[in-house]
């Protein structure tokens, strides 16, 4: 429990009457005890000067009550001393000059002692309050530092304000679009409180006009006390406090604490906003970098096949009569193959943008693993005629729940990559199988392999784009798209070295969904 709860910092003000009565009663009681003690001391021990007994009583009272009460105790003791113990007794009349001096000295001494004891007491109270407030602030600071969202920071602060000040705290955000103060996270406020609305609005205006925020003077028992949230010129909103017992104005200590807490909240909100801005800036820079890389890659990868096409076509056009039939056919074939290469590259770019647009929900269908591997293999064979592609598929082949054209593209890209990066006369193996809840399809080639540190990078768009020039037939984006498609299906694409051999093993894995088995009866 927070120490502040044991000793509410301004309880003595709010519970004015009861505590004053109690203190006055205490002072009277102590004075009575002093009279009794004085009588006993006089009879039994023949004490001459009983002023010390009363002085002790005054100090005792002063140490535990406010200034007024200690003055009351001093006067009461003075009168009692005079009445009961100074000659002539049982009158307030003082006979001897000596007695007058003693009594006056006593009153002055009692007042001074009372004052000192009283100051000590209020310092102890202040210290306790300060310690409690500092502790509450420290805890709030810690929690705010850990808050990851605005809502979290606000909830933490309202809870702390509620704990320490025993008040209900409401954070109102300025909403520029509607020019209103809106309670955070509540679009449709469950509670509409005109007093809150009015108090918050007034506080907001005062803050924005640069005036010191003051409560309503002259008006008693204000329900809501408001503090502006933010910094001058950059106000974010208003924090409103509602105390169980209406106060005319916020006492200085709790007001300072509330201000400090609100300031902490404003700082936390500022920090969160800064974080968001930094993240947005970083993302934008990354996008820009990617765009620039893509653009340079596009211009290179589009131009190299185009230069072959233009050159070959022009040769055919201009020198046709001087070319042998074989040369003409060669040029025509180059135009054809480069045109197809261009087409594949453009397809990759299209897929990239398709995947880049936050991958809309895939339209999935059931399709046999053998079916889709077959189509991708056939397409690869058309691009790389004569390549030996060895299929090792499980029988019966499982049904996959995928977007068929996209998944086929992923498989094709994997196969195309294997064909490009391995010798023409080496076979490409496609091994598929079901392992528990996953389907895996391994595309294994006998090429030089990928060095360990680059195995993850080959899927990185920036990487593949940046090194575009060095790749044979540099279309670049193939594996990035392959992984993108697999991930859009909840799967993954990884590269490794095949067990006990050289080359690359590209593993595509996909969560296996159980196909519904409600096929209608068929005799």
């Amino acid at each position, binding site marked *: 429990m927070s120490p502040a709860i044991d000793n509410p910092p301004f309880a003595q003000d709010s519970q004015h009457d009861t505590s004053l009565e109690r203190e006055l009663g205490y002072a009277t009681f102590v004075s009575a005890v002093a009279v009794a003690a004085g009588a006993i001391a006089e009879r039994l021990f023949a004490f001459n000067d009983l002023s010390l007994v009363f002085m002790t009583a005054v100090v005792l009272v002063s140490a535990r009550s406010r200034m007024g009460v200690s003055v009351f105790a001093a006067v009461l003791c003075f009168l009692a001393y005079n009445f009961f113990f100074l000659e002539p007794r049982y009158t307030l009349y003082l006979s001897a000059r000596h007695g007058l001096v003693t009594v006056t000295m006593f009153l002055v001494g009692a007042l001074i002692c009372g004052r000192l004891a009283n100051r000590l007491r209020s310092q102890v109270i202040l210290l306790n309050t300060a310690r409690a407030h500092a502790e509450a602030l420290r805890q709030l600071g810690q929690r705010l530092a850990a808050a990851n969202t605005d809502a979290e920071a606000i909830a933490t602060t309202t809870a702390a304000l509620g704990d320490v000040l025993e008040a209900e705290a409401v954070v109102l955000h300025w909403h520029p679009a509607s020019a209103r103060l809106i309670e955070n996270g509540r679009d449709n406020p469950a509670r509409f409180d005109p007093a809150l609305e009015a108090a918050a609005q007034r506080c907001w205006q005062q803050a924005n006009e640069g005036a010191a925020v003051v409560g309503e003077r002259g008006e008693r028992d204000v329900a809501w006390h408001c503090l502006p949230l933010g910094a001058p010129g950059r106000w974010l909103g208003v924090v409103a406090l509602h105390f169980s017992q209406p106060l005319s104005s916020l006492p200085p200590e709790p007001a300072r604490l509330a201000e400090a807490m609100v300031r902490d909240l404003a700082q936390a909100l500022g920090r969160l906003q800064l974080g968001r801005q930094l993240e947005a800036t970083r993302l934008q820079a990354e996008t820009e970098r990617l765009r620039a890389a893509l653009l340079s890659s596009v211009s290179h990868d589009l131009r190299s096949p185009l230069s072959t096409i233009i050159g070959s076509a022009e040769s055919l056009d201009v020198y046709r009569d001087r070319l042998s039939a074989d040369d003409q056919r060669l040029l025509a074939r180059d135009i054809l193959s480069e045109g197809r290469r261009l087409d594949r590259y453009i397809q990759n770019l299209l897929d990239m943008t398709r995947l880049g647009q936050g991958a809309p929900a895939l339209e999935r269908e059931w399709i046999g693993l053998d079916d889709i591997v077959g189509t991708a293999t056939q397409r690869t064979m058309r691009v790389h005629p004569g390549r030996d592609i060895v299929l090792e598929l499980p029988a019966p082949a499982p049904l996959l729940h995928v977007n068929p054209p996209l998944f086929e593209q992923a498989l094709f890209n994997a196969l195309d990559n294997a064909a490009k990066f391995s010798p023409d006369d080496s076979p490409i193996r496609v091994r598929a199988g079901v392992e528990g809840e996953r389907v895996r399809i391994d595309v294994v080639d006998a090429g030089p392999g990928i060095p360990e540190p680059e195995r993850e990078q080959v899927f990185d768009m920036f990487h593949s784009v940046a090194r575009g020039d060095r790749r044979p037939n540099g279309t670049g984006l193939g594996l990035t798209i392959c992984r993108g498609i697999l991930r859009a299906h909840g799967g993954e694409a990884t590269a490794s070295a095949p067990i006990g051999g050289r080359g690359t093993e590209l593993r595509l894995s996909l969560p296996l969904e159980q196909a519904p088995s409600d*096929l209608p009866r*068929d005799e």
Partner: protein
Amino acid sequence: MSARILIIDDEVQIRRFLGISLRAQDYIVSEAATGQAGLAALATGGADAVVLDLGLPDLDGRDVLRDLRTWSSVPVIVLSVRAQEGEKVALLDAGANDYLTKPFGVQELAARIRVLLRGGRDADDAEPLELGALRIDTVRRSVLRNGEPVALTRKEWALLALLLRHRGRVLTQSQLLRELWGPTHTADTHYLRILVAKLRAKLGDDAANPRYIATEPGVGLRLLDA
């Protein structure tokens, strides 16, 4: 007599190479650059097959097809660009007979046109059909594989007969599902996959390297016309 082919495409280069290559195969070729002109040319001159581009300047390819289908049953082959599987399927379901994805090869187009021109005559072919190791008799509903009879269930036979009737042409999944299981099952793609797998197994076909039934991912099935 040579077949007449109408090309409706707004790009002059495409019309040119299509015209040159089709004329080289002894077809009579007419050309139109807009949907309206194409419809008019078909109405006045007629054609045995139409090659229709989807991206026309005046009319959407789908509108041309819809208009055309109200008064003509001429075979139509649609040209589309990639990344439009949905569009292709919609057009096939709306009455197009086949599609080609741009860019395409002239030999591919020629093969598709041959299939379309033969189309109608195959349907009432009473003669048993030889297809690879298969001998299919549509009248007696029997299939022989290497001379051995193959026992097909009713649905398997229905699928085979359907593919056979549109031999060489693509059939969309929803067309197949509707024909085989009725209009309420057009989304149950797994029905078709399971049935195809069984039929392939009985015919000795390999999905990974099909000789008879080929899959077109996202579109449908095609019986290969060897």
